[in-house]
């Protein structure tokens, strides 16, 4: 009996061992049959070769011969900041140099002055049509005379050029601009961008319809890109010093600079002098300064200026906020969420988090719908439905199930969102909220669609991820009379969405009308946007004569609200006219983009405004020139494009690993990289299998030893 049992167990063990050995042998054989390391692998292994698609104007590994230092002086006077940016170009080489430098300014910063300083001499810049200014600069350059040029590359991006800087010589280029102080929910803020982030230029945008290289597009792309500095050059490159004279018209409280440490010196009750605690900082992140009024009650600002026979008005009025007189207006909210492939990863998570949060804030009297799109589109409900518990729960489930996949075709979703079944209804407001990274190329179609069919709908853009197409989104929200909010990360998502939705749920002031002594006034923008909680009404207008009273009417919570101000109390201002002109120019740019104006008409209007108000625009540049040549005939001029620092938080190694040399040799265009985490892709089943087999062998061996001992006993 005992003997047969032992024989049986032995037989089982033997069978298992044989099976296991067969399996292991089979697996090992197949691993070796696969060839170990492939023959082709090493031969074609160029580390980072795949990233050669990320071509740039190259990377500067050495300090440029032309060295640059920037000093920024800001004077905040009431609602306007006047900023002087002085760039010192110092030629450290033994030859004659020309340098060009790309730098950012605030979106609403209107450049109106250029001074070129050489030793004791100062040359004032003149405003000229873009091509003429370029010609003046090129001619001075060719004749060996010093010249400086300020051109606009984008509404928020400018390029300075300076020619014929002698060996060891320093030339100062000082530009001045003004920008309105931003005001939101009682906080005043000034934001000075210090560096232009590398822009992605889609290769297809350089082609025309026939697939040929479009030279105009190539020139434009070259204009908005610059070489990048290797971080090892450190902060010696492009150091910036900043001084702010703050005179807000009240005693400033809670002065804060979130990105740079600052020093604050009191200069009387209402004035403060703010400098960087570290003296100089590298130009690699935005400078932001914010302050508050001590009482929390915003000051009423009323300013006027006379310019060329017309009176210009600038007024800041805060309508009554938070007064919930009667029930808030019901809303029809359309959420449009982008689940295309470019959203994959953090952007999709942030978008879903934002949407689910927003769905939770709907009130029973609201109606809503959810639309998702990639290169296809789904409407959750065929028409907006009441936001009862069941429908909101259904929408939340729909949102949770979304995956990022496919191309980005926004137009059908936009069209669907703009369909308004109750177009004439005055008893509800309609808000369309887009959650997207805006990574698409048919931008002009979007503008045109919104402009043509917006009706009473308001379009709010929420930009997801680290590199959304902010230009598209700002313009879409402007055309759709809404706002643009940037949600960077998942952790920011709920906070930013909450701030946006809080503003949107609060009673809005709509139908804002402004008159001066009963007559209408030429406002910029012509159509005033709705106001949300915490937003002040900023008026920029012009009229023949500013006398009598300014009257503002609006609908707040279904009732008419009126505000009157005596214009004789308006303070004199030196910037009202220029700010009006710059706002009007931005409006014309938007109209050109949405095909409301054709290219020629818009260009002509912008050029006229630029020349009249002495402003740098897409059509006008500032140029300064010396009359006498300084570069001796025969001496050659070397051109240098100054490298930019990578914005803080960007990883240089990730962008440029293993391709610096290739990129430097290749003067093509900068492209931006999207990061994607690669999943764990090893099952490791072979080691588990071997471990299992080893265990079995140990067990069998132990069993055999024990069996032998038992027989011996």
């Amino acid at each position: 009996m005992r003997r047969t049992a032992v024989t049986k167990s032995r037989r089982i063990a033997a069978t298992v061992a044989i099976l296991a050995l067969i399996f292991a042998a089979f697996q090992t054989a197949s691993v070796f049959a696969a060839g170990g390391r492939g023959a082709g692998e090493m031969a074609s292994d160029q580390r980072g070769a795949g990233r050669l698609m990320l071509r740039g104007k190259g990377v500067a590994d050495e300090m440029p011969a032309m060295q640059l230092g920037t000093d920024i002086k800001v004077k905040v006077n009431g609602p306007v900041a006047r900023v002087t940016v002085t760039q010192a170009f110092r030629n450290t080489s033994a030859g004659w140099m020309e340098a060009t430098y790309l730098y950012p300014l605030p979106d609403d910063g209107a450049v109106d002055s250029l001074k070129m300083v050489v030793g004791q001499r100062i040359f004032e810049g003149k405003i000229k049509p873009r091509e003429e200014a370029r010609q003046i600069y090129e001619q001075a350059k060719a004749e060996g005379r010093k010249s400086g040029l300020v051109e606009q590359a984008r509404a928020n991006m400018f390029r300075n050029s300076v020619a014929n800087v002698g060996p060891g010589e320093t030339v100062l280029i000082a530009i001045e601009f003004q920008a309105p102080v931003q005001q939101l929910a009682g906080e005043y803020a000034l934001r000075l961008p210090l560096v232009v982030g590398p822009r992605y230029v889609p290769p297809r945008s350089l082609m025309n319809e026939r697939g040929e290289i479009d030279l105009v597009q190539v020139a434009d792309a070259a204009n908005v890109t610059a070489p990048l500095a290797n971080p090892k050059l450190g902060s010696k490159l492009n150091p910036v010093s900043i001084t702010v004279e703050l005179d807000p018209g009240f005693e400033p409280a809670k002065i804060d600079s979130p990105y740079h440490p600052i020093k604050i010196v009191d200069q009387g009750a209402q004035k403060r002098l703010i400098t960087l605690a570290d003296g100089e900082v590298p130009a690699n992140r935005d400078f932001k300064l914010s302050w508050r009024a001590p009482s929390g009650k915003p000051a009423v600002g009323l300013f006027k200026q006379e310019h060329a026979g017309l009176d210009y008005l600038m007024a800041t009025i805060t309508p009554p906020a938070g007064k919930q007189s009667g029930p808030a207006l019901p809303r029809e909210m359309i959420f449009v969420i982008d689940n295309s492939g470019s959203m994959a990863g953090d952007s999709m998570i942030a978008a879903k988090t934002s949407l689910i949060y927003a769905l939770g804030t709907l009130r029973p009297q609201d109606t809503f719908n959810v639309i998702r799109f990639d290169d296809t589109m789904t409407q959750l409900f065929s028409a907006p439905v009441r936001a009862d518990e069941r429908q909101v729960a259904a929408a939340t489930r729909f949102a949770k199930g979304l995956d990022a996949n496919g191309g980005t075709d926004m137009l059908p979703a936009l069209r669907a969102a703009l369909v308004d079944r109750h177009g004439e209804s005055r008893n509800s407001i309609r808000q369309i909220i887009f959650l997207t990274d805006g990574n698409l190329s048919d931008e002009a179609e979007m503008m045109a669609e919104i402009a043509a069919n917006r009706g009473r709908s308001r379009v709010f853009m929420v930009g997801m991820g680290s590199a959304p197409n902010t230009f598209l989104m700002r313009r879409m929200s402007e055309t759709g009379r809404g706002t643009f909010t940037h949600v960077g990360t998942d952790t920011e998502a709920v906070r930013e969405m909450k701030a946006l939705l809080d503003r949107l749920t609060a009673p809005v002031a709509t139908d804002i009308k402004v008159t001066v002594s009963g007559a209408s006034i030429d406002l910029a923008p012509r159509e005033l946007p709705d106001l949300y909680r915490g937003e002040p009404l900023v008026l920029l207008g012009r009229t023949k004569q500013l006398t009598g009273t300014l009257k503002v009417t609006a609908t707040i919570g279904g009732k008419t609200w009126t505000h009157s101000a005596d214009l004789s109390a308006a303070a004199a201002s030196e910037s009202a006219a220029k700010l009006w002109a710059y706002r009007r120019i931005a409006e014309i740019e938007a109209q050109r983009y949405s095909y409301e104006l054709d290219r020629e008409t818009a260009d002509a209007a912008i050029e006229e405004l630029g020349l009249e108000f002495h402003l740098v625009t897409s059509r006008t540049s500032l140029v300064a020139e010396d009359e006498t040549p300084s570069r001796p005939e025969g001496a050659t001029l070397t051109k240098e494009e100054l490298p930019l620092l990578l914005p803080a938080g960007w990883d240089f190694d990730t962008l440029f690993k293993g391709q610096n040399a290739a990129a430097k040799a290749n003067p093509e265009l900068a492209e931006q990289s999207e990061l994607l985490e690669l999943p764990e892709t090893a099952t490791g089943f072979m080691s588990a299998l071997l471990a299992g087999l080893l265990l079995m062998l140990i067990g069998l061996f132990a069993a055999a030893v024990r069996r032998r001992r038992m027989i011996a006993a």
Partner: protein
Amino acid sequence: MTTITAFIGRVRASWPWLICAAGMVIALQAAWIPVKAQVAQIMLEDAFDRSLTDGAARKPWPWADTAPLGKITAHRLGVSEIVLSGASGEAMAFGPAAIADGGSSGVTILAAHRDTHFRFIKDLKAGDELSLQRVDGSIARYRVAGFETVRWDEFGYPANGHAGLLALATCYPFGTDTPGPLRRVVWAELLI
């Protein structure tokens, strides 16, 4: 007391067999991984063929949370695999998964295990032709342009879309069996 003593006695008597059984469980579980990978591909092939005739994605088995997206073929090596949508770890047990899909005009990135579906990656050479047939019947042909070794969290691809790129990603180095931070990425460009 007696029951415990008896239990300990029994364990002492049969521990070699317990070790043996545990080893067998581990070995079978490990062996099941490549078997599952192969069997799933057979079922996926069937689902893919049905999807092709319908033009819409069909699930390979009723409870599947993923569906075939297309079929990747490496012509020189004679390998083809059905690609799944969505890069959950579960999907990658059955086949290569699309972790980014920009269509044939954008960037498509597939990931799979180096010891199952993407074992062929180490044999790919620059110039090899790959093709990706989608469930809608369209076939995009790519040529291998280069290789890249990158940390899993430092991988970047051209943002805003790029005309026709395909990336195949798997763990690196090949031939070892322990998980690590490196990934091997094959870049292929669309042939027009």
